[in-house]
């Protein structure tokens, strides 16, 4: 699905990612954990194509294509989805119009005709149920006046509508109460299949009680310093990040 090799990226001349290697296959869920400032969000931004970041070294291959060569919109059209840590409010653009435009641009990219209005409405209704999103929110402007939890649900709602091959969830659990967490996790679990994959970026272990990862990676100081299975997350939860910090500062020092 995606193959990240020796990825280095910097912002304003400051190197944040210092050689990331990660291989994600279809059907897998990978969790990336790490302390604040380790480069988790930079990784998701670079993969989604945010232009503030400069890739200085390395490669990313997505479904056999060079991801870094693609514009953000083409990455999305090819099946990459980023659930934003801080979803943007866009006053005046209705959720419905936004999603219709997105779906139809993705369809056009695949050489398909625009979706029929009634099919689109049925799709909206179906996916609303999946993430327990109030229908009223769908008719409002994108994220405008949404609570933190509603914004995160809306991200998962969009993911459900767009059916990406690879979804990156960037701290989707931050700021969520336990009910919203369950809804978000349920959404992901219902959407997962042998044909798609997820990268779940999180600070805490609790999301991983609901979305069980196949692999857990620890990101520290711009590098993946440790990889393992779901037990690694539990270990981390018990011991905290201090040990990791201590261990790797020593080896680097």
């Amino acid at each position, binding site marked *: 699905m995606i193959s990240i090799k020796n990825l280095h990226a910097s912002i304003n001349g400051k190197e944040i990612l210092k050689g990331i290697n990660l291989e994600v296959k279809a059907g897998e869920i990978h969790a990336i954990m790490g302390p604040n400032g380790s480069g988790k969000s930079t990784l998701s931004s670079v993969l*989604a*194509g*945010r*232009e503030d970041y400069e890739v200085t070294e390395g490669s990313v291959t997505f479904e056999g294509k060079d991801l870094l060569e693609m*514009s*953000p*919109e083409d*990455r*999305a*059209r090819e099946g990459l*989805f*980023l659930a*934003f840590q801080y*979803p*943007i409010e*866009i*006053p*005046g*653009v209705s959720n419905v*119009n*936004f*999603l219709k*435009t*997105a779906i139809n*641009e*993705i369809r056009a*990219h695949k050489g398909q005709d625009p979706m029929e209005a009634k099919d689109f409405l049925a799709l909206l209704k179906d996916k609303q149920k999946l993430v327990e999103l109030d229908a009223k929110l769908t008719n409002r*402007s*994108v994220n405008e006046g949404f609570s933190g939890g509603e914004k995160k649900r809306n991200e998962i709602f*969009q993911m459900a509508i*767009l059916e990406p091959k690879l979804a990156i969830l960037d701290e989707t659990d931050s700021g969520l109460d336990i009910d919203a967490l369950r809804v978000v996790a349920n959404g992901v679990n219902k959407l997962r299949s042998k044909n798609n994959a997820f990268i779940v970026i999180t600070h805490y272990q609790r999301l991983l009680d609901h979305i069980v990862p196949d692999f857990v990676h620890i990101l520290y100081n711009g590098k993946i310093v440790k990889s393992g299975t779901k037990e690694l997350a539990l270990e981390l939860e018990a011991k905290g990040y201090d040990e990791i910090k201590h261990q790797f500062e020593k080896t680097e020092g």
Partner: protein
Amino acid sequence: MIAERSITAQKIIESISGKANKVGFINDTELTGALQYLETKGIPTNKHEDYKYCNMDAVFKKEFKEIVQEFNELSNADVKPYKLDEAINLVVVNGNYAEHLSDKIIVKGITIKDLNHFTGKNSPIASTAKSNTDAFVALSNAFSGNGIALKVDKDNVIPMPINIIYINSAKNSSLVNPRSFIHVMPNAEVTITERFANVGKKIFSNFLSEKVVEENAKLTSYTIQEEGAESFSVNTNQVKVGKYATYDNTTITLSGQVVRNNHNVVIAGENSVSHLNGLFLTHDTQLVDNHTLMDHQVPNCESNELYKGAINGKSTGVFNGKIYVRKDAQKTNAYQSSKNILLSDDGTINTKPQLEIYANDVKCSHGTSTGKIDENALFYLKARGIGEENARKLLLAAFANEVVDKIEIESLKAHLETQLNKLY
């Protein structure tokens, strides 16, 4: 000095005086005053504070070296695109009311006349538009076309909108002075659209409208400017709002090489409400300059303004909003907001709120913002597969819709959305 100032004005007067409508509906004092003002003060240059960004003298010197005053006749087919199915359509061609192109009025409570109907001392025309206030008011008072007067009788709520089409068609560079006088009598209600179009060659349109909204009356007014690249215009609205009355205007500028709007609202009756909304999307080397005045003369009134501009290419947008709260106008609520987006590196926006407050118990506020298109929003849309062009269109439509949504005539709104979509 005086002579130099008036060269442009002299030329205009010489070019058009032989060919102009005989203005019998303006009283002699006003007429003499108009000519005198033009001859002494001339056409404003950018040294004139109110025309700082809109040098009209230069426009005439550069674009109207010759004013030939030759016009085409127009047919129903020329006018049709500007008619609205749900409205009573009235047409003013090259400044003169064209009854033969207008719909026949079958609605009770509306009286329509051409301005020539009024004569002499008792004519209401120019009662609120004084020559000594502005060169273009003077120009209209001196050389007005035989425009249109519309009266809505007392206690009448007019069930459909009235659409006045001001359409020009010059054979070559010419100057027209279209004019309207709209009088909404007590307890009456009406929606009036004023649409501006040009189907001929280069034109300078000096439009003037007097609007009087009497006690407890309501006038909803839409100004739609789509005159094209060969048009230069000054549009003055001189509005007087009475007790418990409501005046709403939304002005949308789609095109025009130079468009100057002077929207002056005299708040003359207590407990009245006035709203001015504006939207301009400028391209190439266009200049769109909106000047507004909310003149609070009496207590307990509310005024609210929202002007939005999106500036592209090498164009210039101007918003100058003056709020004047006189000594007696206690308990005034006056708000003003100017929001702008710069879409290019070479575009310019000049925005200036001007509050002069002489009463001590008032609520007045103004806000102005100018920025680029929101990069975070743009990225968010792209991250969902929406390409640059459509993402920008969505964001610009969202920006514009706050003003477009004020338009309550569905066919007009649909027309605007189509036209605006081409400009985004």
